[in-house]
């Protein structure tokens, strides 16, 4: 094989671009639909944005002036089209209440990394624990290990975050005093806003564990990891349980296939057969669950952040709904929808890589 053939093989797409483009194009109607639903719900919900901005003691003239300034006196179809246009440019104006005077875009860009970090750690915990537990459970079917894993998984799926979170805080923070109850880092530690790379000042990512590594601050990193451990466990329990159950049933189906028996009959070792032939095939349905689960972790962040007082997207959306900060609600809901759909596109692409028949 000459070097040009090698190069072509290297750049040959593993998934046809047409498949990826079709999936990306479908994001447009999804986000358009979510934007319409958000617009409708906020207009059907009780509450007046003018009162939120001006306060309860504002005069009728002041309130009317604010309504005109916000465009609330325009016909609904005009407001709807204007909202869609703003949503397309990701411009939701300024926050009324929770970060008054700041743009919604800046509020979201500050808080998305916090939620993503939490979801990533929760997902990592779910994958790292769930996959091996599922495989062990399948290989040792009907043994004590299998029963314990299955009961653990069932418990993990059944226990909601709003119950497990406070219980873990009560046990590990209040009684045992091992982990902090809330926050992201020790209150005595302060991080700068930039880090230096080859003499250039660069902004930090907002993901505190990554930022402390970039800054080379070990004490801050340990404190951040210490603060993040309990929320990541809480958010990752459900994920671990679901992945292990899915991996178990998928693995059980695969190890009974003829090709596994053939590989064993030809003298291949049990572990090699399991990992080389069984694992990749058993992984196909699990990848879908992992992807969908990541979206669920984002919604789980709403509860986890509220319980642990982490100021990410989840706590922001809850606070914004509570104080009727409509621009922030619109922005955060659409950001969640965008993240969720992007994750699903990524899952589809991964799935079609693992099983090319899906592209047909």
């Amino acid at each position, binding site marked *: 094989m000459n070097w040009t053939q090698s190069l072509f093989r290297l750049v040959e797409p593993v998934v046809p671009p047409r498949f990826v483009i079709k999936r990306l194009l479908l994001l447009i109607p*999804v986000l358009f*639909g*979510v*934007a319409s*639903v958000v*617009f*409708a719900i906020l*207009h059907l919900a009780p509450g007046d944005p003018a009162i939120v901005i001006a306060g309860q003691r504002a005069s009728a003239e002041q309130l009317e002036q604010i309504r005109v300034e916000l465009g609330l006196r325009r*016909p*609904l179809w005009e407001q709807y089209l204007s909202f869609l246009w703003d949503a397309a440019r990701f411009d939701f104006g300024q926050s009324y209440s929770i970060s008054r005077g700041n743009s919604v875009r800046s509020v979201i860009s500050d808080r998305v990394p916090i939620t993503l970090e939490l979801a990533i750690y929760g997902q990592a915990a779910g994958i790292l624990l769930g996959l091996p537990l599922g495989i062990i459970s399948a290989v040792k079917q009907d043994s004590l290990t299998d029963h314990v894993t299955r009961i653990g998984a069932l418990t993990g799926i059944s226990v909601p975050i709003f119950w497990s979170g406070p219980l873990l805080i009560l046990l590990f923070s209040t009684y045992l005093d091992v982990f902090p109850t809330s926050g992201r880092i020790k209150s005595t530690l302060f991080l700068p806003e930039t880090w230096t790379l080859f003499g250039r000042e660069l902004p930090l990512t907002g993901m505190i564990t990554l930022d402390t590594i970039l800054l080379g601050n070990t004490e801050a990193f340990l404190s951040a990891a210490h603060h993040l451990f309990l929320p990541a466990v809480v958010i990752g329990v459900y994920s671990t349980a679901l992945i292990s159950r899915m991996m178990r049933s998928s693995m059980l189906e695969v190890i009974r296939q003829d090709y596994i028996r053939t590989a064993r009959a030809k003298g291949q070792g049990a572990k090699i057969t399991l990992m080389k032939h069984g694992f990749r095939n058993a992984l196909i349905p699990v990848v879908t669950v992992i992807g969908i689960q990541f979206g669920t972790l984002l919604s789980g962040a709403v509860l986890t952040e509220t319980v642990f007082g982490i100021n990410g997207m989840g706590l922001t959306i809850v606070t914004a709904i509570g104080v009727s900060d409509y621009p922030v609600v619109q922005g955060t809901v659409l950001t969640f929808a965008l993240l969720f759909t992007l994750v699903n596109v990524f899952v589809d692409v991964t799935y079609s890589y693992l099983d090319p028949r899906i592209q047909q």
Partner: protein
Amino acid sequence: MAQSGDPPRLRQYVVVRAQLVGSGLVVGLLLGGLGMAGWTLYTGDARSSEATVFALGALVFGFGLLGWSGSILAGRGIEAMQEHMGTRSNWTERDSRRAMARLCGGGGGIMVGTSIVAALL
């Protein structure tokens, strides 16, 4: 085999889809117009009636659009899963997509109908 008298495929493609969305749109127009007029008569406040009926239309439109794109994204997979599991459901991706397109048209119709009646009142 295509005959010379057959309508072109693109035209047929557009006509079928326009009929689907159009039928929903007409029903939505009527519902939106009547809903707006009736709600205004009931409450006596045209502005709040417009906000309510238009928002309901946007809700139907939004859910229709989400359902339509969801059918395209996951419909074939659900069909294959039903086939694999041997369930006797008559649900198909095509039917779901068409129903959602009609719902989209209905929601759009309600929004347009409401806006027309609101402008006339």
